[in-house]
């Protein structure tokens, strides 16, 4: 019985030709001797044959053009984002820092002052509301 249980566990791999030759021969021999396991194998083969009953579907006519359109839209958007929006945002940020933090903007060209202040969660610009709040809860004088 134990052998039957083990054989049955491997029947799918046997049917799918996914077993090494030696193991395959063992199962073949067992199926010749054991009608119950042979019945089990036959019913699995029937399930596999029944599954052919699901017909293939063709994509709708609009599928290819719609997919190409979607991808080309994404391509356009990513071009606009990468070549126009991001440089424009970077320029705006630089202009902002030039107006509001002129000393930092000149001394640290690689980083905008706002980014520099907010690099870690508890690193807030001095005299900002968040900075005052953190100082208060930490018991420091403001």
């Amino acid at each position, binding site marked *: 019985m134990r052998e039957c249980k083990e054989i049955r566990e491997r029947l*799918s791999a046997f049917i799918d030709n996914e077993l090494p030759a030696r193991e395959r021969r063992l199962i073949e021999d067992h199926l010749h001797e054991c009608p119950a396991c042979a019945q089990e194998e036959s019913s*699995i083969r029937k399930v596999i044959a029944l599954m052919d*009953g699901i017909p293939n579907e063709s994509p709708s006519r609009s599928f290819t053009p719609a997919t190409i359109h979607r991808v080309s839209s994404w391509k356009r958007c990513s071009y606009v984002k990468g070549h126009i929006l991001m440089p424009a945002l970077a320029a705006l940020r630089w202009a902002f820092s030039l107006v509001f933090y002129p000393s930092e903007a000149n001394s640290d060209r690689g980083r905008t002052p706002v980014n520099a202040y907010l690099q870690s969660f508890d690193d807030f610009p001095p005299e900002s509301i968040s900075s005052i709040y953190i100082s208060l809860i930490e018991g420091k004088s403001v």
Partner: protein
Amino acid sequence: MDGSESKIMSEVAKGDLSAFREIVERYQNPLLNYIHRYTGDKATAEDIAQEVFLRVFKTAKEYRPLSSFKTWLFKIATNFCLNELRDNKIHRNTIGIFELNEAGFVALAEKRLSPLRELENQELSSTLKKSLQSLPENQRVALLLHKYSGFSYGEISQMMNCSLSAVESLIHRARQSLRKQLTPYL
């Protein structure tokens, strides 16, 4: 590995839309059928297939022709089905085993005796689809990849990031479950 596909993909990586169209036309049928059988709904399957192709375009630069392009494509689709589809809770026409037994099998067993073979085939096809939908996601994916997309257990284990024996077990359990549900037809 198909040399022509890796060449096409290198063009896609440069943003060539006509190369991309070739990929879509070559793979839309098998991909759509795979996703359709997974979701059970054609419109949803087309939406997801579009997402998969869009991801192919976005990640074309990451494609390395170490395994076949088909394996890479279906891995993306499988990840989509197993992770994002579940996370995004996209509606799927799922039906429980209990529901299927209650609602369908008495009628289906009677239909089997009917001389209208065409109707019987339609019913069988519908029952099969519903039975597939009732399988746990991992079992369904493994079975579909093997049965309809022709992948070996080894390729499926790569796609699903699991062992060969796990794939074997998933496929076997899926068939056992289908066998129970399709008893009137066996």
